[in-house]
């Protein structure tokens, strides 16, 4: 029994880890900026493309293979630095205080532009670079074989979750962010530079999406359309956990990944439907997600 459950659990958790990076970025941006960024998935796929290209270059140039690991992180940081501040300052900041329809449309416009930008820059063929995964190899515990890279993913997701929580509760910037989330007007009155906080939160969100994409390349590779697919999955996870809930996103990504893995094992034809069915079921009972709060209507 255990023999069959443990691989399932590792599979589910590794999947959950990848979804978690994107979803937590989405949820973080929503809680601080109160904007649902429809282009968030594109930063995931851009992160994936950049990481794969850098990895291929490292291997091609004959540099040591272990360099591909820092390259994953650096690619994500590069994407965040390149897109975060400029996108927030130009497009996103323009929509503050506008209706949700305008915010969704502006970020949808950005999504369309970024999708084609990727096609033009990286081409339409899929890119695959699995040096980090093959380098780590496999380990065998109790007769069950694991990919070490999957274990690394799970570990990294845990580290990111704890680091985010510590950042928000312990660091000065994090506490300022929390203040802006709690009450924007009062924080502004107290002298907090909210514009700067918005930029920091958005850039951090882009970084989290990009690192999700970068970490995913060794296992799945990257192809056109990845951004759009990831976007809806991140929506589903963020909505299940409750928009704005960091721990909620973690638990929701485990739920979604488990549903997906179970579907793959027991009802393969339903694997793509599983995350959305879970989302519908949760939202029908708790419209603001498992850990969210808010009111459905104005009355």
């Amino acid at each position, binding site marked *: 029994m255990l023999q069959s459950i443990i691989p399932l659990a590792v599979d589910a958790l590794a999947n959950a880890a990848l979804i978690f990076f994107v979803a937590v970025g989405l949820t973080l941006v929503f809680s601080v900026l109160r904007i649902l960024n429809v282009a968030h998935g594109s930063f995931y796929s851009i992160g994936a493309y950049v990481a794969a290209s850098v990895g291929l270059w490292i291997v091609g140039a004959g540099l040591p293979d272990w360099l591909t690991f820092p390259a994953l992180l650096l690619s994500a940081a590069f994407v965040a630095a390149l897109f975060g501040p400029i996108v927030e300052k130009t497009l996103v900041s323009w929509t503050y205080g506008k209706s949700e329809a*305008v915010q969704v449309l502006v970020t949808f416009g950005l999504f*369309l*532009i970024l999708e084609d930008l990727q096609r033009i820059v990286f081409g339409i063929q899929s890119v695959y670079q699995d040096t980090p995964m093959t380098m780590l190899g496999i380990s065998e515990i109790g007769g069950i074989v694991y990919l070490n890279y999957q274990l690394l993913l799970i570990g990294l997701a845990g580290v990111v979750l704890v680091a985010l929580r510590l950042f928000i509760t312990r660091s000065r910037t994090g506490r300022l962010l929390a203040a802006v989330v709690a009450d924007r007007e009062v924080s502004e009155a107290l002298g907090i530079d909210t514009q700067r906080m918005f930029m920091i939160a958005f850039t951090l969100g882009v970084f989290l999406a990009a690192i999700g994409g970068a970490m995913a390349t060794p296992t799945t590779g990257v192809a056109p359309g990845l951004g759009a697919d990831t976007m809806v999955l991140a929506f589903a996870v963020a909505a299940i956990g409750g928009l704005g809930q960091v721990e909620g996103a973690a638990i929701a990504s485990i739920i979604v990944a488990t549903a997906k893995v179970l579907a793959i094992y027991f009802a393969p034809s339903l694997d793509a439907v599983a995350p959305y069915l879970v989302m*519908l079921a949760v939202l029908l009972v708790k419209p603001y997600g498992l850990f969210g709060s808010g009111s459905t209507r104005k009355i």
Partner: protein
Amino acid sequence: MNRTLTLSGVALIILALAPQIFPFLQFTLTIAIAKGFAALGVALLLRAGLISLGHAMYYAIGAYAAAFMAQKLGITDFAVIMIAATVISAFFGLVFGLFLVRYRAIFFAMLNLAVSMVIYSLASKLYGITGGTDGLRVAVPTIFGMELSKDAFDGVLYYVSIVLVVALGYLIHRYLKSPLGNALSAVHSNEVRLEYLGVSAWSSLLTAYTISAALAGVGGAIAALSIGHVLPEYAFWTESGHLVLTAVLGGIAGIAGPFLGSVFLELIHTIAVGFAAEAWNMIVGVALLVVIFFLPRGLFGLFERLSGQKATDGEPKL
């Protein structure tokens, strides 16, 4: 108002004559009208301040209903297919709307998205019913028992679509002028006051939601019959995004706006495929941003401004 009516009349005549002069435009314009219907449905909800990121599902339901009847049930009559596809979409709209219209703002958008992705995944996985990712083929329907060639049928479909634009456009116009239709803008501007007046926001929105699903279904059925093939991609969330985009690009203030936006987009698409197929989405994305930043009333607003009309008070805005 009369001027708008005249302009709409001129636009319709141009629409009716265009394929006679440029036959290759007929297919493009048929699809533009089909998507225009769906965008009009989205525009109805936008009046109430509700943005649906899932309306492509009703377009897909209309298309699949048409294909399913023609292929699996052996119903070949054009009129029956069109009416049944519309009724089926409206039915789905009513059922999903029962719980969806309770939500506002981003939650409405996301729940619509979730439902549409369930429909999308089911359409691509239930191979026996929907043909899976291959989709379904749609045979050329008969018109009151007459069998037509594909070319002849496409001509009929095109002019029937234009007649439907006028007929349904007029009905929607009347609906929006009625208290029930006015309640939509009231939901947007002050829902609490609307409820204090004794009007149920829930039932006003449910009516609008069902009508919008029916409109999207009409569009889907036209598209299915014109293309002759339906695919799960019709229901993908980016398609829903495109429908919202089309509505906003054209302008949500009048009936003509979404159709204007749709025809404009399809024409640009046809031109762009030739030399900038790679950058098509980018062109649309930039156009969308330009319209949102500089033309809050859409192309329709620009059109009116050029013809010397001013925005009226109380006109629906985003």
